[in-house]
């Protein structure tokens, strides 16, 4: 489950990077593109970090 979540986050990160650096943004849509691309990058990185730090009750018990 954690691997699937990580993989989805990675795909979202790639979409964010594509929108930020490769996609040819039409006129007057720079603000939307700026927001959406950075939103996807931030959310995907933070979800990867949360995925990394997340501990199930069993893992907490072992600690």
């Amino acid at each position, binding site marked *: 489950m954690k691997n699937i979540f990580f993989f989805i986050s990675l795909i979202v990160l790639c979409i964010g990077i594509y929108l930020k650096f490769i996609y*040819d943004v*039409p006129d007057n849509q720079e*603000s939307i593109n*700026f927001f959406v691309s950075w939103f996807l990058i*931030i959310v995907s990185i933070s979800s990867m970090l*949360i995925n990394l730090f*997340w501990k199930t*009750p069993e893992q907490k018990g072992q600690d």
Partner: protein
Amino acid sequence: MLICNLSYRFNNIMNKKVIVVFALTVIAIIVLTLYSFGPLSNVRKRAKMNPESLKSVSSEKTAVSNKSIVLNAYHNRDLRENYYTIKFPQVAQIHAGNKPGGYSLNYNGIKGTVELMDVPDNTTLELYILSQDEPKLKKIIGYKREDYKKLIINGNESYQLTYASKINGEDYKTIRTYVVGQDMAIVITVSSPQSDFTDMQNIASLVFNSFRWENK
């Protein structure tokens, strides 16, 4: 009881690092929203404008219909891939445009703008002008196309649209020149009351004939 139960489960699953990451994400999204659409969005737009673009780098004298005019050259360095040089009359008031890579000018009642225009990859500049840009102009009160022609400006494919319109009941004429670029196109718009059309035509031709892309 329910709150205690939820709090117990929350503490059981969450750890401090997750909470910190979550809190930082929320803060980052709030800042991003302000920076994109809120009061900080002007900071982002201004950050792209290079102050050097507003400094004239050289001057030259030229004669237009027996009048001597000094032209100042400006190197616009706002957007990489779209650096260009343009000359404006020395006495004209030059300001930064609304968007990076642009200028606005005011010269004896003659008003003008220079703007970068993004043309989608799946079309040509001419098709874009006729299918997208001119239909927008047609919404201007009293719009009437007077001339449309293809030009070559300093080796660049260009198009020029001349039209009449009404502003506050007064007849105006505008010359809009589009120059093809490697990344974006440039649009030089100069307009004046119909009575000043000859003067405006001379100034417009000086300005657009001085235009050069620097990346070519």
